């Protein structure tokens, strides 16, 4: 009987097992299979068999109950052997298919060879990820099959028909030299870049080698001699010259990145994030960012700082770049954007908090990617943040930055560093909130810090603290912040529960977009519906769009309402009409356009109210309300219009998808700053100059001077020169840079240096601001050794940039 049963099972089940099992190796890519085999080889080669439980499970699914243990073992051995056989044949088919990836058909053909019916229904070109689940001592491997709603398929438009095979020819080599055209790969891969920076003696770029030997052969007859020469060469020539195309590209990209056109910027950032051939420009980009941050921190130019941070993020997103070499330049810039005492001209109204959050996330990301045991980035960053946070004299802005920076580093950091400090911080916040004589700025700062703490700590506490959330306990544990924390924790718990209910919806990440928070907290941000818009008198309505739109399809139309004088509260008819008609045109189902007017404190402050109407996002059912905040630099100028025009108005738009949680906080659309384009009265400025307008455009350089509140611009610059904010000056980790002597500072007020800066590269003019001695102000395109150490004469004269690396 035993025998019969066995026969039965082996007859009937074997092919089935085979199928089932081979279905389980359908998906893995060849490398994985290889690696599996390698692993197999490494350990016990002969004893890798399927567990007999699987046999039992399969037998049960076939309707054969109670398979004996012995037969299970026998079967599993047999099946494992057959599977290995098939896998080996499948590899053969893979090789002949000239692929590196095993596909499902590669399994089908060997089955066919063995006269087994191939598996139907396992056709997939792609990798099918296997899921693993365990629980109750049982382990389960499965692959997720989505439920397909046929009506969805019917209703969705057909996908594009895949393109047919086509043939394209290009030159891989011309007379032995590989031309650098887009069809050919970039000359150096990430590994090579790494090798070049870590082991400069060993690394030889492929292109260079070719060049070298070809040229060498031209000069000296025998190739052996050339080889000798090459061996003698101590260090490979590293070219830092950019080709004309690269120079153009660099110029275009940097201009677009900090320019006014958001579409262009998106394209430029996309290019930075994906283009494989950027490594030669990397030193320039890196310097562009770091110098840009220096300058704009001094200038409190929030918008530009935001752009630069986005650039930095794009660089980090690029998989082909080896950024490690430039961290010493990039990280200080990021840290500056997190903790700087002041990032914008009007800290009370501008949302520099968002920049801090963004930069903090960026920092967390770089910690994750770049931190190694040698450079210890994460611990150093943590120390820096902690140190300045612990300092009593630290300002609220820096405090916020430190906390944001720390909390982005993950729940562990929050648990160990932030939560223990909650009580102390609560006391401090309380002092501000309930204190009597406190400046508005402090209050805002404290408010932000408070909400930041609540936001980050709540989720962590919800995890580490057992369920009953009693307000009093929280008060005793966490002091002033306790009660609020308690409610947040409760909220977090319910959210977590909700999340658990809607399982597997990865799109529903519950992280709240931080900017949502900050918006609602904009002081006196009395949001009103468009119908009751009250805009101060003498409004001029202008289209912000330059005469020739640079964007073919504007994502959002923008109107600017400008007030020249404060006080008089008469509503311009035009505006309202425009607005309403505008609203009518946009048949947005929901979309509240809110204009936030900003309390004008200094007299003669120009005000901008920008209404941004973004067409309702088509697929999203959620009403998106966009709110535009705008601020202006306090310009105590006698001619306010003039100053507004010329002085790069700082503004940014915050499009808050209020109820759509952003799925990826870091890529976030929550953050799309727009630089104010020139007003009509302004002559059309080429965008390169536009970027620099605050400093360098001829017009602005004239105008700046009166606008600057300080008696002399030199004096203005002075406090800012140690670019790193004062908050950090106590911890000179990132900026060991001594404040350069004032004498060497280029005379800012005189317009002469600014009139000539239309250099090939825009950032060269930024260099001027950073006051290094001569060499570095040389336009970048001149062959200048790249940043790290050893070689260049200029590095000695350059201020030691940072001690981070």
């Amino acid at each position, binding site marked *: 009987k*035993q*025998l019969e049963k*066995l*026969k039965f099972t*082996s007859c009937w089940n074997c092919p089935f097992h085979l199928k089932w099992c081979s279905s389980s190796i359908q998906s893995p890519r060849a490398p994985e299979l290889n690696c599996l*085999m390698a692993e*197999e*080889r490494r350990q*016990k*080669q*002969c*004893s890798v068999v399927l567990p007999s439980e699987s046999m039992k499970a399969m037998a049960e699914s076939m309707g054969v109950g109670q398979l004996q243990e012995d*037969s299970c073992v*026998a079967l599993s*051995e*047999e099946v*494992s*052997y057959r599977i*290995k*056989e098939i896998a*080996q044949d499948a590899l*053969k*088919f893979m*090789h*002949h*298919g*000239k*692929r*590196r*990836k095993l*596909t499902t*058909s590669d399994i089908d*053909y060997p089955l066919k*060879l063995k006269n087994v019916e191939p598996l139907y229904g396992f056709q997939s*070109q792609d990798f099918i990820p296997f899921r693993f689940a365990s629980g109750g001592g049982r382990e389960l491997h499965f692959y997720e099959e989505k439920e397909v709603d046929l009506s969805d398929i019917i209703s969705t438009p057909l996908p594009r028909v*895949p*393109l*047919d*095979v*086509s*043939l*394209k*020819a*290009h*030159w*891989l*080599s*011309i*007379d*032995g030299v*590989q031309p650098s055209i887009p*069809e*050919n*790969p970039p000359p150096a891969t990430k590994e090579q870049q790494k090798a070049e920076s870590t082991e400069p003696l060993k690394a030889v770029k*492929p292109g260079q080698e*070719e060049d070298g030997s070809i040229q060498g*052969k031209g000069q000296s007859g025998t*190739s*052996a001699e050339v*080889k000798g020469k090459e061996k003698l060469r101590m260090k490979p020539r590293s070219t830092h010259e950019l080709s004309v195309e690269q120079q153009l590209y660099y110029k275009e990209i940097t201009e677009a990145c900090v320019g006014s056109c958001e579409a262009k910027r998106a394209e430029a950032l996309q290019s930075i994030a994906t283009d494989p051939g950027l490594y030669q420009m990397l030193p320039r980009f890196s310097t562009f960012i770091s110098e840009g941050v220096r300058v704009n921190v001094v200038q409190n130019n929030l918008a530009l700082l935001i752009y630069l941070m986005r650039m930095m993020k794009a660089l980090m997103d690029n998989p082909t770049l080896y950024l490690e070499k430039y961290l010493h330049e990039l990280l200080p810039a990021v840290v500056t954007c997190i903790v700087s005492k002041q990032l914008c001209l009007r800290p009370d109204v501008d949302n520099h908090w968002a920049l801090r959050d963004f930069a903090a996330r960026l920092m967390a990301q770089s910690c994750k990617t770049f931190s190694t045991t040698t450079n210890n980035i994460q611990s150093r960053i943590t120390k820096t943040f902690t140190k300045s946070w612990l300092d009593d004299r630290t300002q609220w802005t820096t405090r916020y930055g430190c906390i944001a920076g720390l909390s982005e580093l993950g729940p562990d950091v929050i648990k160990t560093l932030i939560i223990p400090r909650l009580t102390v911080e609560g006391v401090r916040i309380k002092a501000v909130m309930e204190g009597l004589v406190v400046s508005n700025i402090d209050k805002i700062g404290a408010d932000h810090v408070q909400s930041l703490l609540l936001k980050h700590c709540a989720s962590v506490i919800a995890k580490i603290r057992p369920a009953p959330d009693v307000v009093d306990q929280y008060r005793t544990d966490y002091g002033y912040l306790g009660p609020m924390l308690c409610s947040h924790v409760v909220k977090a718990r319910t959210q977590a529960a909700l999340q658990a209910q809607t399982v597997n919806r990865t799109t529903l990440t519950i992280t709240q977009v931080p900017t949502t928070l900050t918006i609602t907290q904009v002081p006196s941000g009395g949001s009103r519906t468009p119908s009751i818009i009250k805009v101060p008198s003498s409004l001029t309505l202008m289209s912000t769009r330059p005469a020739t739109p640079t964007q073919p399809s504007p994502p959002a139309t923008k109107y600017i309402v400008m007030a020249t004088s404060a006080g008089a509260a008469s509503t311009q008819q035009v505006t309202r009409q425009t607005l309403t008609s505008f609203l009518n045109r946009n048949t947005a189902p929901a979309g509240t356009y809110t204009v936030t007017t900003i309390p004008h404190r200094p007299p003669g402050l120009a005000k901008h109210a920008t209404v941004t109407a973004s067409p309702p996002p088509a697929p999203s059912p959620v009403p998106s309300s966009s709110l535009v905040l705008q601020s202006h630099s306090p310009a105590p100028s006698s001619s306010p219009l003039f100053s507004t025009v010329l002085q790069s108005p700082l503004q940014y738009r915050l499009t808050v998808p209020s109820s759509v949680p952003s799925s990826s906080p870091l890529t976030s659309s929550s953050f799309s700053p727009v630089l104010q384009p020139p007003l009509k009265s302004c002559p059309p400025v080429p965008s390169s100059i536009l970027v620099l307008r605050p400093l360098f455009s001829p017009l602005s350089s004239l105008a700046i001077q009166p606008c600057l509140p300080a008696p002399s611009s030199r004096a203005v610059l002075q406090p800012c020169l140690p670019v790193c904010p004062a908050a950090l000056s106590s911890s000179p980790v990132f900026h060991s840079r001594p404040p350069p002597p004032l004498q060497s500072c280029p005379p800012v007020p005189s317009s002469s240096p600014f009139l000539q800066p239309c250099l090939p590269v825009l950032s060269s003019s930024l260099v001027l601001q950073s006051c290094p001695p001569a060499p570095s102000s040389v336009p970048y395109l001149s062959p200048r050794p790249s940043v790290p150490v050893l070689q260049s004469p200029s590095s000695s004269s350059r201020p030691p940039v940072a001690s981070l690396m």
Partner: protein
Amino acid sequence: MAAVQDGGSELEGEKEPKPELMNDGSTAPAAAPSSRPEDQQTLLAVLQFLKRNKLIESVDALRREAGLADEPEEAPGSEAAGGAGGAAAGSGELGDAGALLSRVSGGSQSAAAPAPAKGGDDQPDVSVVLSAYSQQGDPSLYQVYYSGLKKFIESVLDCHRAELSQLFYPLFVHMYLELVYNNHESEAKSFFEKFNGDQECYYQDDLRVLSGLTKKEHMKGNETLLDFRTSRFVLRISRDSYQLLKRHLQERQNNQIWNIIQEHLYIDIFDGMPRSKSQIDSMSGSLAGEAKREDNKTKVYYGLLKEPEIEVPLDDEDEEAENEEGKPKKKKPKKDSMGSKSKKQDPNAPQQNRIPLPELKDSDKLDKIMYMKEATKRIRLGPESLPSICFYTFLNAYQGLTAVDFTDDSSLLAGGFADSTVRVWSVTPKKLRKVKSAADLGMIDKESDDVLERIMDEKTASECKILYGHSGPVYGVSFSPDRNYLLSSSEDGTIRLWSLQTFTCLVAYKGHNYPVWDTQFSPYGYYFVSGGHDRVARLWATDHYQPLRMFAGHLADITCTRFHPNSNYVATGSADRTIRLWDVLNGHCVRVLTGHKGPIHSLAFSPNGKYLASGSTDGRVLLWDIGHGLMIGELKGHTDTIYALRFSRDGEILASGSMDNTVRLWDAIRAFDDVETDDFTAATGHVHLPDNSQELLLGTYLSKSTPVIHLHFTRRNLLLSAGAYNSQ
């Protein structure tokens, strides 16, 4: 059937020491808990005895007593039936394998005809083959034997150690198989684990196969194993080392090992100095050891055939107009050289009519003239002047491009795809036109001068034509030299001949029942060769639907096939890591070239027919001297399978294309010059390989994630390469 039954009874016989394994192979795992079946067996035997003696009553009584009452009649019957069924099933398997085996061995017989064919070829039955393992030693002692030998070999003089180390792998495999065959599963396992680390790394693939094989019943139908058994593993050992070994084994009375050596190994003893480790390593690696020296003794006519005399029309008016100066000058010496070359008969060349070749047609002559004209414009390549490379990238191929071929004049390109299609592109501005339909052809004025133009259908002209017909991935494509036909071989086991006039399939050649990995036209057309998973290479003629020759001898899939430039020989590369050269005339295997450590995926003959280059999955290119049957060079540099190899038209440069997305150029002249082929080397087959890959490498060109799967030198020495862009 009888043989199988014998096999079965033999098995029964052997089973005496292990009574619990009472059934034959296929039902062996069914072995029930040990004590019961034993009793049962006795019982059954008694019952049978009683039955035979017609003692029915006793039978019944005994049955009742033994509790076998439930199936009184069936018990013995089913037993027998089961056994028979099992045997039948087994015989089915065995029959298959046996057929395959007999083919293989038949092939090797014919192949090894010049060599003394004593290698056990006369036993085509698997069970017999396997039963060679049945002789028993104490399983627990195998480890002792092996480690004893290991100790001995490690203690001998250095000069002998390398040679004797060759013994490890075959001994290891055979001992393991013996253990498995005799059902000492756990011993086999521990034996394997203990010693598999000692084996050379290039045997890993086979060891992996071996490791999966843990039961006797796995051994049936396992081809790798059959190969190992049917072909004796060849070792080349110097006489001194051999004596040393023999003495040692005799002293120790180590019969186990000695038996294996006697029965399963072929030791090719030579006089002279023992070889060094590197020498041995360079030659070993194949599935069945090195090639026997006798295998490569046959003379190979590697010279080129005499070119037919074709008068090059000296003055084409338009050409003359194109470049007036220098033209006559150029032409004169050219013609002289051509003439002198063709007049002198190469002593190594085969007779002109050794293989009947098709007559030259007018169009062929025209093509030859074109060829010569182009040849005059050919760039002389060398280390100083590298060729330009034009890369044809297949976009949107979605990983489906499996084969590519260019016509000799580089005007057409064919791609075989995994979706069973073959696509032909015109890479010149001239579009692909097909002949008009019969109805339309009837309306053509046949007397007109441009009738050949008129029959072409201008309306449907396009740059690309798709040929549908296969039902599996197309693994090989090849154009006929006259550009009228295209061959394609596919997973479906057929080779199809397509007309490039009508773009339809003309013939499907069926013979390979398994995937056909490669096919190629003879350089003179008419003949073509194919090879595939069934390990047999076949030579066909386009007008015969059955093969003219079958080249059997490879021990694993034939992965690539190439015609010698003189069309008298065919080279096949195989997954058994050997290359064989076959004589088209008589089907003999005239060269066995070992040294690759992975399946061979590309072959290329040098234009002068003297050398062969081969590339394999291990990323190495090996160079061979066909005349001497020797390895003369090794080009290291690629990091992945080499799918394409091609010599430049004058043979100065070897281009290799690989899965690692690179095209590499090698200095072929220097590679061949550096070799000193003195008599000693030729006689003994010992090779000293200069390690000069880096110096020979002239250039590396990386493509953008596009594996290079085909290379082709145009007649003017421009290198064309092709591959499919791989978006990941």
